[in-house]
Structures are given as C-alpha cells and as structure tokens.
C-alpha cells in the first residue's frame, strides 16, 4: 500500500466517523482529560467520580471517554485534538495548565464545546469553571490553628498560580485569627501529582517542627508520611481521603463536580449550551467539607461547623477586611470584601506570611 492510499483510506475513515456522529440518534459523547491517574485518591479521582455520575444519570444517551495522566503542555493539545476528531461533543479539560491548549484546540473545532477547569481564558465554545476551594481552606486554617502545638503549620504548595496562593492566604488568615503565634512553612513541589516529591516535602516539614500539614497536591503520600510520624494532623485534599481518618486526617475539602457535569451535558443535549464562567463554593455544594473527626476537640469542631454554616449562607466571606498585603500596604479596609477579579488574579501573600512567591 502506498502512502497515498493509506492517507486516502484514513481520510475516508475519518469522514465516516464524523459523519456517523452527526446522526441525531447517536449518544452524546463527553470527553475528560485528567492531569493525574484516576486512582490518585484526590483531584482526578473526584473528576472521575463526576464522569461516572454523568454516565449513571444519562445512561445510554451519553457516552464518556477519558484520558488520564496527560502532561500539561503540548501533549495535552494532541490528546484534545484526538478526542475532538473521535467525535466528542463536549470536552472537560480538568487542570489549570491545559488553558492555552484548550483555547487553541477549541479554535480548530468550533462545533465542539470545551469546559476548562480553574482557568480564566474563555471563547465562544470554551467555558471555565472552578470551585471556591479557598472557602474550604478557611475552615482548614481555623481547625489547623487550634490543633497545632508547635505553632508551625507546613504547607505543600504545587505551582505559584492564583488558585494556590488564594488557598495559602485563606488558610493563613483563619489560622492566625484563632492562634496569633502561628507560622507557615511553605514548600513548592512544582507538581500536582508526584507521591515521591510530596512525601519528601511532608517529611522535611515535619522535621522542621510542623505538626499540621496542609497540601495542595493530589496524592495521599503526605497523609502516609504524617501517619508514620504519628503526631501530625492532615486534611484530605480534593477528595475525602477517609482511609486516613480519624487521625492524621481530621477533615477534608471535597470537590463535587457531578451536578455541574450533569447540568452542562444536559445543556449540550438540549442545544442550550453557552460559554459561561462558573465559580461556586460551599453554598451551591461544589465544595464540600469532609466530616470533622473525633480527633478534633468538641469546641473546635463546633466553632468550625459554625464557620462552615456562615460560609454556606454567604453571611461571611473568607477575604473580609481589614487585611494587609505582605509588604504592609492596605489591601482591604475594615469590612471590605474582596472582589472576584482580584481573587482570580491573586499574586501576593497577605501580611504575616514569611517568604517570597517564586516567580
């Protein structure tokens, strides 16, 4: 077979494939791109739970596909293109680092709808969605500040992007509010999922006196490190991580993507899909707080639950003034609430955090 005939048959097959998906009776095809493996027990695990919920809800009307452990960068573009060529009608790209690739591929496939998680670039056929994880971080900080005895809280950060910095600031402010002596030690792991690096970082933080570890990386390795150390408190990240409860894991932030994924898939089926920007928190249920275990004293648990309730009703916002920036300049005056624009692009620490954000 010559290259020409090969190419010709490939084009033919492609034409048949895309022709077939145009048929109205065919199921709607929904694709998911994951940054880690579905078994990570954290971030990607919860996105996959959302995918399974979509399958269960729609049954035969919807077909889902996914690709796991897709590196952020050019490789992601290849995977997305492949998915679009295979007839996906809606593609969820579930990591910040897919942002530019999602926009680039969306331009080439105007009929395919794209949904990019945690990013800020939108287009005619690209929506963005994220959760207000920082509301959960406020609860974590509130508990962490009261659980620590060494007054040192270790924080395993992933990449220096606004979402992560928001989490650090929110946790710090609420830890400081209940424990003025608290100090944050931050290690930048430069990965979303690498159990080896995460375990090293957790061990070093523990060696330097941290007795609470907060993580913005997706694996359970820091939980295992804390368990081995014996006297260190952790929180589940993105997923409940209940296998480490009641100790070291005393609570968690749970991402619940299922309702959003079902609603957006429905919109594609109905033909009512529009490019939107969704940013939901504890109130609408996109951010859940895992059960606070009995390792937490009753009064701390009660006050944490009161805080959750105030966040749920919207009565309280985590970033409410007075708050100064790290350099001492005023960010929010007394009673002032941060606007979404500033939060979305947050690139500074609040007053009291030691160290610089890597550039």
């Amino acid at each position: 077979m010559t290259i020409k005939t090969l190419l010709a048959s490939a084009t033919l097959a492609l034409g048949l494939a895309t022709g077939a998906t145009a048929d109205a009776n065919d199921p709607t095809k929904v694709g998911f791109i994951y940054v880690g493996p579905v078994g990570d027990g954290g971030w990607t695990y919860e996105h996959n739970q959302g995918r399974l919920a979509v399958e269960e809800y729609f049954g035969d009307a919807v077909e889902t596909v996914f690709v796991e452990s897709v590196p952020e960068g050019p490789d992601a573009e290849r995977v997305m293109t492949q998915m679009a060529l295979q007839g996906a009608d809606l593609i969820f790209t579930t990591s910040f680092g897919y942002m530019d690739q999602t926009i680039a591929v969306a331009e080439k496939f105007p009929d395919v709808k794209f949904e990019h998680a945690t990013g800020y670039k939108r287009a005619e056929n690209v929506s963005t969605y994220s959760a207000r994880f920082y509301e959960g971080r406020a609860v974590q900080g509130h508990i962490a500040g009261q659980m620590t005895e060494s007054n040192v809280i270790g924080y395993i950060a992933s990449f220096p992007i606004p979402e992560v910095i928001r989490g650090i600031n929110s946790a710090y402010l609420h830890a400081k509010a209940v424990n003025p002596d608290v100090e944050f030690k931050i290690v930048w792991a430069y990965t979303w999922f690498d159990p080896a690096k995460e375990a090293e970082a957790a061990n070093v933080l523990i060696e330097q006196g941290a007795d609470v570890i907060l993580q913005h990386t997706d694996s359970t390795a820091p939980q295992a490190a804390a368990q081995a150390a014996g006297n260190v408190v952790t929180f589940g990240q993105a997923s409940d991580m209940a296998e480490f409860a009641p100790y070291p894991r005393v609570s968690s932030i749970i991402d619940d993507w299922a309702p959003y994924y079902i609603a957006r898939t429905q919109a594609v089926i109905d033909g009512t899909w529009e490019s939107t920007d969704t940013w939901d928190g504890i109130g609408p249920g996109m951010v859940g707080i895992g059960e606070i275990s009995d390792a937490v004293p009753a009064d701390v648990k009660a006050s944490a639950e009161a805080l959750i309730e105030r966040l749920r009703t919207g009565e309280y916002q985590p970033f409410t003034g007075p708050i100064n920036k790290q350099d001492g300049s005023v960010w929010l005056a007394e009673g002032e609430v941060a606007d979404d624009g500033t939060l979305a692009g947050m690139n500074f620490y609040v007053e009291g955090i030691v160290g610089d954000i890597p550039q």
Partner: protein
Amino acid sequence: MDLSSINPILLLASLMVAATPILLAAIGELVVERAGVLNLGVEGMMITGAVCGFVVAVATNSPWLGFLGAAVGGALLSLIFGFLTQFLLSNQVATGLALTLFGLGLSALIGQGYIGVKAPSFPDWYIPLLGDIPFVGPIVFQHDPMVYVGLAIVAGTWGYLKYTRAGLILRAVGENHEAAHALGYHVLRVRMLAIMFGGACAGLGGAYLSLVRVPQWTEGMTAGAGWIALAIVVFASWRPWRLLLGAYLFGGVTVLQLNLQAAGAAIGVEYLSMAPYLATIAVLVIMRAGRAPGSLGQSFHASR
C-alpha cells in the same frame, strides 16, 4: 531565613534514608562493572524492582517478601540484558539504554491498578542501648532495617572483592577477560552472576522507594535515581567505601535543599532543586576518577 529551624540530627538521619535507594543500586552496578560489564539499565531495573516489590508486598501484606520480590524482579530483568550482551554479543551501551526504556514501560504496565493503593507499613527499628546514645543514636541507630541491609551489602561487597578468592576471580575477569579465560575461569558464568546481583540490588533500591520512602506506586517514580547511581560508581573509582560517601553526599544535598526551602531560604526553588545534580557533576569533575576495570564494556567470546 531561619536556619535554626533545621535540626542537624534529623537532617543527618534523613540523609541516610535518602541515600539508601541510590546506595543499593550503585553497589550492585559496582560489582557488575568490576566484572567488566557496563549495564546502563540501572534505572529500568530499579523501577521494575519498585513495582514488583510493591505488588508482592500488597499481595502478601509483608514488606520483607516485597523486597524479596523486588530483588527477583530486578534480577530477571537483568537476565535479559545478560543474555543479549553475553551470549548474543550485542552492544552493551545500546542494550543497557534499551533496558531502561523497556523497564519504564514494563513497570507502568504491571503497575496498572496499583496506583493509589496503600503499602503495608515497614516500621523503624529502635535498636536498644545503641539507639539511646545521644546525638549518634538518633542519627545512626533508629532507622528501618533496609538502611542496615544496604550498609551490610556495601561491607560485604568490600570484603568479597578484597579478601575472597571468588572476588579475585571476578576482578580478574573485569581487568582482562582473555587472561582470565586462559587461566581456566568461566568468564560468562562470572559475568552473568554479577549482572544478576546488580539487577537484584537495583530492584531492592527501587523497592525502597515504593515501600519505605514514599510509600506508594507511581509511574516513573525513580525519577533518574538509576542514572545518579551510575555516576556515583564512577565517582567512587569502583571502590565500595567511596561509593558510600558518594551516595551520602547526593542524599545529603537532596535533603538539605528541601530543608533550606522550608526554612525560607532566599534562593530560587529551581536552583535548590538542581543542587544535588550540580553537586554530583562538580564532584565528578573535581575528583580524579580512578582507573576503570580494563575490560569494561567489551564483549567476550572464547573463540577470539
């Protein structure tokens, strides 16, 4: 920066732990190279050992059996290398590189379904009396058993190469395989055994990562440790005790850079992360490397 938050005792203690995987892989490769074979597939054997050890440990709930499985897995993979290079006389450099790529792929395949699974715990030994010595006790005598197994293998290798007849034969095969053959020694048998020992040690090193250090399985978790092990063999001029020094140096810089970061050092994270590798390169350049075994990397065929 607050340097006082770095506890030197804990730093030295975790240095020993951080160095163990590289130490195990490197001591195996040292024996292989002393027998005149250059196996660049250490990384592939390490990662295969990591996954084999993890699978066995999860299935049997015993870390010790896991380590045994890792050694067997690494040795089996090295047999492929041995067969290709010793019997089919393929190029050792190319075959070793291929073994690394093969091992990475094979381990990812075996590890499907083991991502996110918890390994059985492997508690530290608290050695009575010795562990109570101030300063030295917490640094040296309160680790998990594999740290001591690693040290025992180094000591054993040193004694074997220096004092035993079998060690002398192995060195002879590595220095001049024609002469060893003429004296009636079985060059291929010695080399195959050395290659299997190297594979088993690399497997142990990998399993130390997946069962103790992390302890979890992920694809590519050795992250280049096998290449560092190769560099440390050269750095050590093919001598066991200097190899121990090299592994501790690399482990020490690795632990130190994370500690500096956590202490808020005003050095870029990127520079800190590259520090262990820069240190290894610098030492390799500065130290005058000893003489390599005479027949290193050459194929042997009895008819020649």
